[in-house]
């Protein structure tokens, strides 16, 4: 017994020792480590052949040239094209995260038909044939009832072949209601048409200026073309050019400027006119331009000298007299001074008075159509399609008034007035829009007073979205005809965002379409063919690609090769013969005369503060939006990489922070990180407080680009959509949305 036990134990010890000394445990230890180094759930990207494909980024109007690095058929990285006229190798963070939009799990994979309530997000997958047939049937029905004019289309642009085809479709079909989303370009276009004459867009020769006077433009916060502006900012640093930023909040642009001039918000035009006063009074203006190329300088001079003396302006703007005098002298004393405006990224038209007053400053110093100045750039004109042969229905439909009133007698200068369009739909018993198409736009998110927008959508019986992922507008559609994502499609992109060059870029299918999507151009052509008759005849192309190749003609090959093509003949426009106003000269008071009803122009026609909504008693503080490059606020929301870069003093978990001066906070007995309820006449939001010394006391600022309902868990439900808290303020004479802030009150929560 004893012996047995002893043997047994010895055996046990032997087995343990033997196993330990055998390779088995060591091998197992090694294997388990190797396994931990190659966990099957950690992806291992396959290697392959590396190629580069040039294209253009269409995620914002900026138009950066991009080159996409591919491994076999996978796009793995977006980089900038070196020496590109817009971005010269640089890319912004939205562009850099573009592949997350391309490969995102929330792409719409096939045509969808709504089955639940609007906005509920319940969809049925349908075939393209069914989808297009349903659209054609609806359109055919409206047309046969003589209601072709009740079809509308909202688009992000009116340039290039896709907007061209949409416009053409509406013309052939019989509706004048093509409408673009608003931006500062609307104000600049109207101001230029009244001051310069003709239709042109404003180009800013930022690369060559030596003094920038910015009235609240977020130059490096995404204004116009973000990468180009940041590049220009670096040029200014190198060349020792001066930048003056005028705004009540220390934005990134203000922080990078040489002089930050905090101003009472909404009084920028008065300051511009005050500067004009000093420039005129001290005879610092460009006499050649004023005497030979301007029409109404003396009238302008009289008003400005009389009503915008530095003392008065100081009272209005809160900018002291000394600063006004010094700014005016610096501006006029610079060799290539440039005055610009368009608050933040310029996503709203803003006050046209401001544009006119600021542009008058450029005229005073003669820096119009000159290097380093503002240029009136005529829009590219390469689309030469045969005229649409309208049938009787189409021509009678095209004669109807636009729903938004743009181009009417009252708003004869405006092209599109989407803010009025919303009002028109909401104020009529039966919606004047019976069918709506939306492409390249997300009005249910980007328009102010989103509740009113959604209400208008509710009244429209048939809404079709071409979105490639579920944004707020697509969520409120009846039918989604998903377009190819960017990088999956051909499309010409004429670049216009403040560029002083004539450049057309070509978006290319870097990868083949990932899902059952269809090019918007093809969808339109197919619908036209289904409708037949003169509509079908207006589209003589087999498909979009054929149309595009034919349109671009001999430009095609170079565009495919380089991704863009610049017009070599495009040079600095001159003064001589540049103005197409009635006087054939520059008109300082072009805008003011419209305001005065073409009568006696007075100071109030040059500057009347845009009253913001809410009375001061119940809403003692002013709430302003601020734009940031890290928060895409247009029709595309932040992809995961982009939202990751947002600071924790802007967004923490689901809460958005509003910026508040410590002085204001003290009055409310509120401290950093506290919750508060923000009330405006339009809405209510629970926010957190971030104390920021760089914001004027009495003001609070909230970031734009948050509060999305989609498209994925990386973005949805984070923060508040600023547009829910603000409503449009219509300019009585021009119809544009001139809003810049709203009044609010705050209670600690």
């Amino acid at each position: 017994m004893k012996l047995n036990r002893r043997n047994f134990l010895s055996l046990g010890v032997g087995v343990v020792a033997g196993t330990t000394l055998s390779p088995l445990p060591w091998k197992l230890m090694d294997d388990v480590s190797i396994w931990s180094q190659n966990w099957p759930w950690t992806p291992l990207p396959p290697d392959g052949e590396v190629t580069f494909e040039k294209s253009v980024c269409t995620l914002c109007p900026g138009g950066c040239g991009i080159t996409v690095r591919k491994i076999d058929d996978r796009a793995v990285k977006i980089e900038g094209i070196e020496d590109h006229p817009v971005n010269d190798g640089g890319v912004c963070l939205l562009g850099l995260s573009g592949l997350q939009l391309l490969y995102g799990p929330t792409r719409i994979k096939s045509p969808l038909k709504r089955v639940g309530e609007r906005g509920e997000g319940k969809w049925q997958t349908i075939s393209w044939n069914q989808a297009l047939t349903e659209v054609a049937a609806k359109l055919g029905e409206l047309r046969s009832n003589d209601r072709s004019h009740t079809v509308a289309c909202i688009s992000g642009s009116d340039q290039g072949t896709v907007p061209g085809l949409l416009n053409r479709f509406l013309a052939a079909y019989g509706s004048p209601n093509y409408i673009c989303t608003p931006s500062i370009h609307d104000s600049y276009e109207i101001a230029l048409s009244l001051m310069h004459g003709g239709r042109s867009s404003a180009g800013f020769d930022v690369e060559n200026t030596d003094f920038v006077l910015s009235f609240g433009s977020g130059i490096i916060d995404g204004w116009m073309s973000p990468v180009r502006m940041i590049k220009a900012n670096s040029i200014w640093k190198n060349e020792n050019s001066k930048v003056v930023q005028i705004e009540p909040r220390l934005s990134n642009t203000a922080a990078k400027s040489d002089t930050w001039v905090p101003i009472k918000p909404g009084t920028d035009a008065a300051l511009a006119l005050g500067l004009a006063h000093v420039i005129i009074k001290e005879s610092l203006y460009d006499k050649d331009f004023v005497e030979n190329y301007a029409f109404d300088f003396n009238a302008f001079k009289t008003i400005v000298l009389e009503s915008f003396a530095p003392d008065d302006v100081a009272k209005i703007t809160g900018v002291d007299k000394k600063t006004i005098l010094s700014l005016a002298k610096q501006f006029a004393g610079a060799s290539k001074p440039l005055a610009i405006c368009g608050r933040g990224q310029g996503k709203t038209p803003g006050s046209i008075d401001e544009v006119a007053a600021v542009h008058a400053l450029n005229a005073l110093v003669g820096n119009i159509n000159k290097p380093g100045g503002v240029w009136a750039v005529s829009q590219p004109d390469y689309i030469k399609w045969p005229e649409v042969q309208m049938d009787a229905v189409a021509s009678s439909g095209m004669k109807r008034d636009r729903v938004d009133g743009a181009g009417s007698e009252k708003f004869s200068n405006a092209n599109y007035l989407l803010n009025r369009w919303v009002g028109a739909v909401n104020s009529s018993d039966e919606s004047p829009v019976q069918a709506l198409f939306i492409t390249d736009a997300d009005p249910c998110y980007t328009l102010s007073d989103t509740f009113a927008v959604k209400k208008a959508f509710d009244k429209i019986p048939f809404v079709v979205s071409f979105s490639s992922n579920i944004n707020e507008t697509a969520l409120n559609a009846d039918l989604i005809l998903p377009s190819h994502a960017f990088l999956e499609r051909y499309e010409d992109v004429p670049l216009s965002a403040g560029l002083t060059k004539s450049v057309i870029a070509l978006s290319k299918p870097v990868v083949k379409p990932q899902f059952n999507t269809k090019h918007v151009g093809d969808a339109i052509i197919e619908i036209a063919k289904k409708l037949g008759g003169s509509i079908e005849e207006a589209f003589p192309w087999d498909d979009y690609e054929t149309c595009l190749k034919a349109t671009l003609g001999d430009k095609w090959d170079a565009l495919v090769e380089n991704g863009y093509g610049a017009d070599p003949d495009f040079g600095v426009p001159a003064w001589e013969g540049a103005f197409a106003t009635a006087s054939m000269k520059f008109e300082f008071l072009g805008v003011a005369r419209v305001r005065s009803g073409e009568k006696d122009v007075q100071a109030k026609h040059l500057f009347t503060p845009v009253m913001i909504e809410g009375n001061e008693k119940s809403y003692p503080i002013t709430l302003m939006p601020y734009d940031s490059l890290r928060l895409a606020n247009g029709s595309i929301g932040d992809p995961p990489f982009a939202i990751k870069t947002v600071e924790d003093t802007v967004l923490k978990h689901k809460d958005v922070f509003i910026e508040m001066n410590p002085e204001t906070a003290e009055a409310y007995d509120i401290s950093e990180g506290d919750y508060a309820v923000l009330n405006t006449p339009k809405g209510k939001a629970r926010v957190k407080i971030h104390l920021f010394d760089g914001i004027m006391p009495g003001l609070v600022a909230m970031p734009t680009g948050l509060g999305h309902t989609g498209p994925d868990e990386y973005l949805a439900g984070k923060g508040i959509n600023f547009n829910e808290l603000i409503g449009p303020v219509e300019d009585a004479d021009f119809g544009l949305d001139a809003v810049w802030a709203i009044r609010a009150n705050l209670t600690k929560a």
Partner: protein
Amino acid sequence: MDSALIPKGVKRCSLGLFTLGIAVAGAVLLWGVYAMLLCWIKGLNQTNMNDYYGFALWIWADLAVIALGGGAFFTGFLRYVIGKDELKNIINYAVIIGFICYSSALLILAIDVGQPLRSWFIFWHANVHSMLTEVAFCLSCYFAVLTIEFIPLILENRQVDKVPFFHNLSHNMHEVMAIFAATGAFLSFFHQGSLGGVAGVLYGRPFGSREGLLVWPWTFFLFTWSAAACGPCFTILVTWITEKITKKKLVKDNVIRLLAKISGWMLATYIIAKIIDTWYWATVTAPSMGFTLMDFYSNNAFYGIWILVLEIFICGIIPALILITKTGRNNSKLLMTAVILAVIGVCINRWVMVLQVMAMPVLTFENWVLYIPSWQEVATTILPVAYGVIVLALAYRYLPVFPQEKELNPID
């Protein structure tokens, strides 16, 4: 029922009561094991650690249990190397406590690393410059030594001892124990020191960084010293607690007082060294990096200067004074106060050398960061306590841990 296993000549509580006690500790243990499994399966996202607190509660627990386990090596050193023979009456318990502390430390480390399956890379791809490498090697070796020191005691169990092989093995092991004790002491000096070095070598972290001797920062020596001073205090404390629970005197006062006296002198000299170190750090090292002493303490209440006062004065100077005076040692209330303060003191020292090092911003545009451990971290930190209680209970019940127990508690 288990009386056959219980050593002869001593009395133990009923098995039922014992089982109940074990069950309570076992429940806590299971809670800890559950948290441990969560950490292993789901990863360290189960903790509240973050990129600023890469070292947190667990590393503190590691440092603290190793310091407290220092009673084993130092008592062993005194008993076998110096020849303080009386200490044979407490050495067994010191060894068991040390064994528990060190095995706990290893377990916590195994939970703490992000890739436990390849933690052996520390040996295979060892970087000789790293204090942690030194810690890993010495710790593992010393744990082996402690196991060897513990085995003879297990073999003395009544039933095991009946097997002649084990009887002889136990006897032979006792014979050579001095060699192991010396080896253990040598290893301990190094790993206690290298644990001190862990924070001391962080020349990018002004709060932890210390100048030193050759490759060793002063904290290297201070840690060894403080472990030698406070480890025996912990042994005394645990013995005292055991006496309270068992309602028996287990170790004679003279043994305890001897250990307390040695501890006291160690603590006194340690605290003088610590004050000199703190002084030099505050007036020379820190200012050279652009910091004043108060920069390290002034930001928030949690990491205020009180923590330094508590560590050095209340939990350093006071217990040292009590322990080095005869009246202090002979008054059991004062003695236990001193012992408890010393134990708290060394734990605070380990706490600040881990947590406050992490909390204090170095870049001027960063801020102090506070950290609250998750329940998983707390549970896995309490796990060793429950495990320790169970091992101590089993050892006390079934092994002849206290040679003086029979004499002090004669059975009628």
